[in-house]
């Protein structure tokens, strides 16, 4: 990837190069097939930026987020945080810098722990306080920061609503004062009205604490709202990557165009006049992906070379990368 031309090396916080994550799956008596959850994905994130990742369920976006934090060991590729590779290193010091907020606010909190112990766990592990009083003070500050009442200090997760639980999850991630947070569909399990609150809070926190986000979601509208740039994933591959404004104005990959045309528009006149591109067929099984371009089975363009060769992610306009043979 020739991307060095248009970016300032100083600004890059996280860089992912040719990252692959394969899961070996038994498919026969002795036969094993690799499930290519993340296949040769490269991108970078600037400091203070939000990079959105969208795609259908099963496209590998969650695995991507977890692999970047090495919660899943990458099969190959490089992950650089602040200029240094984190592959093969002891992750403990990096856990202070890189954190994650999970999708499911019910499964992501230990039901046997109080709110204070959940938020304080990171400090306990990383020994970030000198006294009990300091720990308590820090936890209360964090709770205040994410809009949780002080009285919740000793309560258990089951006493809270989904939105409040997600606040606890965010406070837990913030406890180590990280620079980078993977937000793994943090609002998709919440009510729409609560989603806005959480999104706004995440944005505020980003400003006050200079956070960098990798924001994973399947909801394009939310991703557009919060992200500076957006990457579109399909079957483990990054198919398009550009700024959010550009992506909406000028989507180049047929898959992105389909996704965008599927967003409902609140204005009936515009909605009717719009030409909808229907997404045909099912997403193919990642165990048995199509040869060449992974999207060719559902693609309206279809060319000879699509079945033979995997299109590379090329920069077609400044800062706009697309992986498609037919442009």
């Amino acid at each position, binding site marked *: 990837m020739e991307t060095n031309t248009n970016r300032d090396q100083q600004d890059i916080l996280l860089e992912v190069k040719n990252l692959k994550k394969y899961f070996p799956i038994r498919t026969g008596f002795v036969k094993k097939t690799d499930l290519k959850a993340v296949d040769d994905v490269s991108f970078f994130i600037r400091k203070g930026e939000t990079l959105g990742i969208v795609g259908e369920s099963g496209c590998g976006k969650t695995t991507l987020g*977890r692999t970047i934090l090495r*919660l899943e060991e990458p099969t190959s590729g490089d992950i650089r945080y602040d200029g240094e590779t984190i592959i093969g290193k002891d992750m403990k010091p990096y856990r202070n810098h890189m954190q994650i907020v999970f999708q499911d606010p019910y*499964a992501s909190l230990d039901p*046997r722990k109080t709110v204070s112990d959940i938020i304080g*766990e990171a400090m306990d592990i990383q020994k970030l306080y000198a006294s009990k009083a300091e720990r308590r003070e820090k936890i209360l500050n964090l709770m205040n920061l994410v809009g949780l009442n002080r009285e919740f200090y000793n309560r258990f997760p089951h006493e809270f609503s989904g939105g409040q639980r997600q606040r606890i999850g965010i406070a837990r991630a913030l406890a180590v004062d990280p620079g980078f947070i993977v937000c793994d569909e943090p609002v998709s399990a919440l009510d729409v009205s609560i989603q806005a609150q959480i999104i706004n809070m995440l944005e505020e926190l980003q400003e006050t604490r200079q956070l960098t986000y990798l924001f994973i979601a399947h909801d394009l509208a939310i991703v557009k709202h919060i992200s500076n740039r957006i990457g579109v994933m399909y079957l483990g591959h990054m198919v398009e990557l550009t700024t959010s404004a550009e992506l909406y104005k000028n989507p180049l990959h047929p898959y992105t165009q389909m996704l965008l045309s599927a967003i409902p528009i609140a204005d009936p006149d515009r909605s009717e006049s719009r030409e909808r591109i229907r997404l045909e067929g099912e997403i193919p099984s990642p165990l048995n992906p199509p040869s060449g371009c992974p999207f060719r089975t559902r693609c309206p363009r279809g060319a000879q070379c699509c079945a033979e060769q995997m299109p590379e992610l090329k920069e077609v306009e400044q800062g706009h990368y697309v992986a498609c043979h037919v442009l």
Partner: protein
Amino acid sequence: MNTAKVKFPSLQNKIKPEDFTPLAEGYFDEENLDTEEIGYWKASWQRLKKNKIAMTALVLIVILILFAFIGPLLSPYTYDQQIRGDEALWPCLKHPFGTDRLGRDILVRCMVGSRISIIVGLVSAVIVMIVGSIYGAISGLVGGKTDIIMMRIVDIIYSVPEILLIVVIKMVISEPLDNLIQTVPAFHGLQKIGSGLIAIFIVYGLLYWVGMARIVRGQILQLKNLEFVTASEALGCSRSRLIREHLLPNCIGQLIATVMLQIPSAIFTEAFLSYLGIGVSAPMASLGSLTSEALNGIASYPYRVIFPAALISLIILSFNLFGDGLRDALDPKMKK
């Protein structure tokens, strides 16, 4: 807001002027006092208390334990004391459960027998819990090939008929054990227990834990995939801390319930073996051996069979019922 109980007599809200008066000073403070958290154990205990059958069983267990452990101290007789002139008595004031052919008081023998049963149940349960949970936890946590091999071993052990093996092991160890007891003073204490009981414990340690191991492994696998475990890993949590702080507390409820239900099963086995004459050695009595001794004279002295038989059924029944209640209370998810 108790909308569930209101039957909506009219669709119009009845608004009274009082509804618009300001709330008293400190209204919310008072509400806050009410937020005292209920822990997992407290909540479980409250659920258990509501279960009348389980509570009755608990009371019964306490009474039976007192009967078995304090009872013999209060009795004027000992379990092996042969009282001359009191042979083969029917239940009377002096001997509420009667006496046997040798003039031994059946009440005190039943107490001692119950003690054996309860000890066997508890010790076996502890053995099963320790071996089973360690094995299951290792298998579930390590995963991969280790897990597959460990679980295949469990499958094999699972199909061994344990009763037969207990019998065989008891025969194998009984003589070396007797030699050991006679030659090494430190093992004198074992003499009373007898090789039969030790064989039971050995077999429980070798075989019976497989059910437990499966349950623990299942729980660990289930928990391992939950996001809060991943979250702790993302915080840099070490493996030992993960087990101690997250996995264990989350499956302890199921563990306890399973162990509780293991107790009656162990008592069952001991009674069965004693009945066959390979449990405790005479003159020590267990409820099984008491019944089997008395069976010959069943036509003339039915009371000698009835008391120990009823007692053992009562012990097993109370542990069963209490175990059921405990399982429901500790794991409300299963009750659905």
